[in-house]
C-alpha cells in the first residue's frame, strides 16, 4: 500500500507548489535568524552609546585605601583609562599583569574603579597583585558603575584629554586591545583628521 502513492500521473502538476512547500522551513528559519541577530545587536555592550562623547558623570566617591577622603569627577584628568575591577571577577586577575606593565611603561594614566566589592577584599586584590592605578575609586554600591553603564567587570573606559568618555571596552585589556582599540581612540581628538583617514594606523 505504501508504494501505491508513487503513481506519478498526478504529481507533475503540483510539483512546483510542492517545491515551494519544501522551501518554507528555510524561509522561516532565515526570518528567525535575522530576528535573533538583531537581538544580539542590542547587546548590553552597545547599550550606552549615549554616554559616548559625554563627560564623566558627576560623583562623590571615597578612595579605596582612604575611606575618609572623598573626591569628585573634577579630580580626574584625561587622557586616561578608567579600569573597572573587582576581587570577585576572575578575568580581572588575568588582565591585571598587563595593566601593571602598561602603568610601568608610563604610556597612560589609569584610574581604578573598584566595583561592587568589599573594601578589604578590594585592598587585598591590589596589595597582592600590584597597583597600576593613579587613584582607585571605591564604588561599593555600584552607583557610579550604573551611571557609567557598567554591566560587569572587567570593563575599561577611555577618557580623552577633554575628559570625555570616548569608548567603553568590555572584557580584558591586553597589549593587542591597548594598541589597536584603546590607544587610537584616546588620542583621536589630538591626532585629528590625519589619523582618521588612515584608520587603525596607530599600530
Amino acid at each position, binding site marked *: *500500500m*505504501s508504494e501505491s502513492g508513487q503513481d506519478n500521473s498526478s504529481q507533475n502538476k503540483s510539483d512546483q507548489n510542492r517545491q515551494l512547500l*519544501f522551501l518554507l522551513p528555510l524561509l522561516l528559519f532565515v526570518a528567525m*535568524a535575522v530576528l535573533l541577530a538583531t537581538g*544580539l545587536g542590542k*547587546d548590553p555592550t552597545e547599550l550606552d552609546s549615549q554616554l559616548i562623547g559625554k563627560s564623566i558623570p558627576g560623583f562623590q566617591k571615597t578612595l579605596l585605601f582612604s575611606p575618609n577622603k572623598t573626591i569628585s569627577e573634577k579630580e580626574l584628568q584625561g587622557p586616561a583609562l578608567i579600569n573597572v575591577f573587582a576581587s*570577585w571577577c*576572575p578575568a580581572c*586577575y588575568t588582565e591585571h599583569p598587563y595593566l601593571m606593565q602598561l602603568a610601568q611603561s608610563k604610556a597612560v594614566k589609569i584610574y581604578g574603579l573598584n566595583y561592587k566589592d568589599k573594601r578589604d577584599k578590594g585592598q587585598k586584590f591590589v596589595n597582592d597583585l600590584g597597583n597600576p592605578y593613579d587613584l582607585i575609586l571605591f564604588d561599593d554600591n555600584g552607583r557610579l558603575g550604573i551611571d557609567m553603564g557598567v554591566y560587569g567587570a572587567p570593563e575599561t573606559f577611555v577618557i580623552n584629554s577633554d575628559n570625555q568618555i570616548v569608548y567603553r571596552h568590555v572584557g580584558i585589556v591586553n597589549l593587542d586591545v591597548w594598541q589597536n582599540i584603546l590607544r587610537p581612540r584616546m588620542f583621536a581628538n589630538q591626532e585629528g583628521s590625519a589619523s582618521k583617514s588612515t584608520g587603525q594606523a596607530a599600530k
Partner: protein
Amino acid sequence: MIPEIGNLALAFGLALALIQFVVPLVGIATHRWRLAIIAKPAAIGQFFFVCLAFVCLAYSFYANDFSVAYVASNSNRSLPVAYRIGATWGGHEGSLLLWVFMLSSWTLAVALLSKSLPALTRTRVLSVLGFVSVGFLIFILFTSNPFDRLLPVFPVDGSDLNPLLQDPGMVFHPPLLYMGYVGFSVAFAFALAALLEGRIDTLWARWVRPWTQAAWMFMTLGIAAGSWWAYYELGWGGWWFWDPVENASFMPWLLGTALLHSLAATEKRGVFKAWTTLLAIAAFSFCLLGTFLVRSGVLTSVHAFANDPVRGTYILVFLGVTVGASLILFAVRGSKVSVTSWYNLLSRELLFLINNLILAVVTIMILLGTLQPIIADFFNLGKVSVGPPYFNTVFNILMAPLIFLVGLGPIVNWRKYEYSELVKRTRLSLLASIVVGLLVAVLADDKIFTDRLQLFVGAFLIVWVLVLNIVDWWKKAAKKNRNPLLGLFSISPSFLGMYFAHIGLAIVVFGVVFSSHLSIEKNLRLGIGQTQEVAGYEFYFEKISDVVGPNYDAIRGHFIVKQDGENVAILHPEKRQYRVSGQWMTEAGIDANLARDLYVAMGEKIPESNDWAVRIYVKPFVSCLWLGSILMGIGGLLAMTDKRYRAKVKQKLGISDDAVVSGAA
C-alpha cells in the same frame, strides 16, 4: 601541566573531528573508498582525546588548580569533592566541554554499533557528526577555553561554585539533559545522510528509532531532574516557570516526541518521510537554538549565566550554517524522499499526523512566547515579556486534545479503522472518564467555574488515557499468556515501552492537575514556639539551631508536623550563607510521599522580633510528576531494547509485515 595536556587533547580532538568531517565526504565524492573508511577510526580517536580533555578538567577541579581561570571562578578549596567534580560542568566553558564529550560519546556509539548499516550511510552519518563536533570544538578552543590560565599571578583560592548549583540535582541534571540534546544530533545526522542519498526506507527509520528513543529518554529524565531541582532548591515550591532556559530544553523535547511518533509511521507504513527528516533537523536545531538562547544573553532569565556577545555571535553563525545548510538540503532533496501516499481518514497515521501537528504548533507558540522580548524590541513595541499565564493558557488548551489522542493511539490500527469499532471499544472508557471527571469537578470545594472545568478535563483525560492503555496492554498480554498478569511483560518491548510512556504521561498530568489545584500555600510570619495549621497538618516551629557546613554556615529551623495529634514528619529547612561569596541560599525542608509533600522554607528573620517569614506548603501528588517522568524514561529505555533494531538485516527492504501483532508502535 595537566591543563596543557587537556588543551592539547582538545586541539587533537578538533583535528580528528575535521578529518572525520571532511575526508569521508571527499572520499565519497571521488569514489576513493580508502578515504571514506577513515571516518570510524577518526571518530574513535576524537572520542579518546575529548574524553582525555574532560578528565583533565575534572582533575584540575579535583586538585584545586586555581591557576586555571575556569576552576578559579567555579570552585573553592572548601567545596566538597563531589561538588568539585560536579563543578566541572557548573559554568559555561565546562558545560560546553561536557556537550562535546557527550557528542563524541554518541559518535563513538554510532561508529561501533552500526555494523548493520550500509557503509555509505554510516560514513555520511559520522561525517555530519564530525561537522557538529568541529563547530563546538572551535567554539570551545577560541571563545570559551576552560583551560585558560591565570598566569603569572593567580588567586590562592577560587571564588566558589554558585551556591545554587551546590546540590545533588545539579550533578545529574546537566549530563542527562545534554545526553538528550546531543542525542538528537544522531537523528539529525541520519536525516542529512538520507537526504544526501535521496532515499528513505523502512530500514532507515528502523536505524534511527533506537537512537531517537535513547535521546528522548535522556532528555525526559534530564528535564524532570531540572524541574525537581528547581522545586526544592529555589525555595519557592514551583517546579516549572516557563523560564527561557526551561523552554529551551522543552521545545526540543516536544519536537523529539513528535519525531518518535512520525518515525514509527515511517517505519511501519512508509509515510511522512520528508516530514520525519524535517522533524529530525528541527529537533536538533532547537537544541542548538537552546544553547544559543542560554549562552548569548539575548534573553534574560533566572539562570543568569555570564553572557558574552562574541560567544552569542559565534553560536548564531554556527546555528545559521548548520540549520541553513540542512534546510537548503531539505528544500532541494526533500521532495525526492517524500511519497504521496494516502491513507484513510481514520487510521493510526491520521492520529500521528494530528499528534505531530499539535506538537509542532505548541513548539512554535512556546518559541514565540520565549522570543517575544526580542520580537517586541525589533518592532519597537517597548520592553515587554510574556509571563506564565500565556504559556499555561496556550499549552493547556493545545495539549488537551493531544492527550485525548494518547488514549486512542494504541487502539486504532494502521491503514484503516472502523468508526463503529472505535465507538464500541471506547464507549465504556468514555463513560467512566466522564463520570470521574464530573465527580472530581463537583466534589472540589470553593472553586470557580474555570477551575472546575480544568479539573473535569484533567480528570477525564487521566482516566481516559489510563483505562484505554491499560486495557489494551491487558488484551495484548492475554494473547501472550493464558494468565494475562504473567503476560504483561512478555509482550514486545516496543509496546511495553509505549504503555510505560503513555501511563507515565497520564501520571505526570495527574500530578500537574491535582498539585496545582489542591496545593495549599501559606506565606506567613511565625515565631519560634508557635504552631500553624495548614490543610489539617499542624506545623510546630520548635527552634532554630546553628549548623556549620563544609563551606557554609546555616541557620536550621526545626519543624515538627503533626496530624491528628501524631507526629508525621520533622522538617529541617535551612538558611545557608556560603562563606566565600556571602550569598544566602534557602534550603527547603520537604517530607515527600506519593500522596503529598510537606514543604517548609524559611524566608528572612523579621528584624527586631523572634519571628521568621516562613513558607508552608502542603502539596498533594507533586511526587507524581517525577514518578511519571521516570516511567516515561523507562518507556524510552524499553522501546530501545526491541530486538528488531539489532537484528542483522539481510534483505534490503521492509520486514514491516512480520510484526508480531498488527500495528506495532
